[in-house]
């Protein structure tokens, strides 16, 4: 009987324990679920709060700072003179250019790059792009025209492997107000890219040189600039490009009203690893033809003069960087460049100019570089002796130490 009572008590006790435990478990489980849900809700609110809209703004930019020491020798009419200069920033060696990028969704991109250098405060470009179709971009604003590739792709201090720009190349690539259509196209194992712009155009000045970037057009004619690039290899190692720029350059109603400027450019870019080095060859050749006009003699306004207004500029650059070495050696890059720039003879500014430039770079990161560059310049004046513009033979040797970073 006692055993039966003990068994009964045990059963009751067991039932009580089971009931209590399940109740406790049920309460703990419920409390955990609500805590997790609360946290999830809070996180969702935080994510929603920080979720970006369609507008995205970011600022990048670059700065270049340098030191230049030069020795200049000029020989005119058999008389030589020598001068030595050294300075911190000059036009080639200082630039501070923040770049503002606004993206609206995946269709619109607004780009604005002001720049401060020794020429003062200016704007490199200010435009808006509309990504209209997979390989079709329409742009309007203040544009770097598609003439060659140097100015648009290679001129930035943190990209250029030498401290100086090749003479004449960037100068003959104006920035202008207009509209542009561009894109890249797959073509089997090759690629093509196209870039066409319609802009206000250049302005012929009173000495036969060209000015660009006028916000008020000097005539009713618009200038067409176009470039076609061809990448024949599937690894994109080689790009060949041809460009043209055609338009009237004379002021409307002036004696130069019918003056026309025709410009052509040919460019090449080859980048390939030949173990143990990465080889990079870049080249561009520009030709500028302007119709021959009669200009007012600067020494006698009753007289005029004319000349064959034909200009050429070209460069070839080669650089090598180790790919198989220790991390310290891999950061070095050796570069060399030959540049030729021939301005029209018998003008007030005619010169045949050549530079040989060599440099050793040390890459502190993929976008930070310290450059040591040595450049020899030879300028042989072809300017008019009659106009008193001839200035003999000039030789300049310059050493540059330059630091450039993109952030």
């Amino acid at each position: 009987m006692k055993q039966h009572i003990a068994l009964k008590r045990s059963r009751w006790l067991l039932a009580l324990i089971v009931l209590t435990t399940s109740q406790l478990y049920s309460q703990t489980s419920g409390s955990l679920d609500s805590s997790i849900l609360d946290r999830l809700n809070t996180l969702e609110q935080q994510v929603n709060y920080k979720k970006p809209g369609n507008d995205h703004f970011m600022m990048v930019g670059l700065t270049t700072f340098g030191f230049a020491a030069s020795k200049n020798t000029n020989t005119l009419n058999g008389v030589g003179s020598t001068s030595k200069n050294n300075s911190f920033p000059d036009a080639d060696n200082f630039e501070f250019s923040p770049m503002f990028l606004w993206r609206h969704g995946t269709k619109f991109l607004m780009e604005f790059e002001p720049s401060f250098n020794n020429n003062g405060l200016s704007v490199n470009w200010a435009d808006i792009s509309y990504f209209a179709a997979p390989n079709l971009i329409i742009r309007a604003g203040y544009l770097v025209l598609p003439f060659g590739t140097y100015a648009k792709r290679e001129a930035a201090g943190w990209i250029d492997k030498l401290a100086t720009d090749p003479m004449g190349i960037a100068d003959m690539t104006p920035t202008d107000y207009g509209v542009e259509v561009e894109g890249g196209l797959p073509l089997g194992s090759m690629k093509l890219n196209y870039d066409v712009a319609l802009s206000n155009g250049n302005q012929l000045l009173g000495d036969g040189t060209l000015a660009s970037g006028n916000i008020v057009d000097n005539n009713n004619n618009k200038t067409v600039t176009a470039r076609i690039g061809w990448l024949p290899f599937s690894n994109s190692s080689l790009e060949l490009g041809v460009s043209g720029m055609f338009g009237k350059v004379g002021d409307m109603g002036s004696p130069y009203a019918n003056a026309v400027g025709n410009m052509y450019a040919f460019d090449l870019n080859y980048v390939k690893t030949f173990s143990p080095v990465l080889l990079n060859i870049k080249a561009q050749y520009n030709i500028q033809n302007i119709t021959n006009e009669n200009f007012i003699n600067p020494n006698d306004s009753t007289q005029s003069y004319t000349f064959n207004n034909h200009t050429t500029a070209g460069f070839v650059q080669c650089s090598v960087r180790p790919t198989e070495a220790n991390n310290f050696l891999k950061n070095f890059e050796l570069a060399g460049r030959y540049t030729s720039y021939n301005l029209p003879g018998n003008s007030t500014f005619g010169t045949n100019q050549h530079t040989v430039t060599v440099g050793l770079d040390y890459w502190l990161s993929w976008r930070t570089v310290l450059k040591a560059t040595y450049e020899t310049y030879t300028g042989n004046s072809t300017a008019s002796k009659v106009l008193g513009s001839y200035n003999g033979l000039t030789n300049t040797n310059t050493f540059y130490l330059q630091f450039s970073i993109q952030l």
Partner: protein
Amino acid sequence: MKQFLSIKKITIALVAVFSIVAVLSINGCAPTKAVAAKSGAQLWAENCQRCHNTPSPASYSAEQWETIGMHMQTRALITEAERKKIVDFLKSSR
């Protein structure tokens, strides 16, 4: 006047060339299978170094890479398919 006419001819020739390019592309000048199969990493290695050193994926946030990708497409004129693959690679490798 002759020069002006020659400009017209050159412009017409350019327009003709661009029209041919447009027609070729519209008519399915797609990349070969091998080219289309390239990964974002391979395209990053091949295309970025055409102008500058290959960028570190850690340099920008995922959202910023979208913007940088669009900016680079306007500069290097890579195709849209290449841009998307390169940006996806950079975002996933951060």
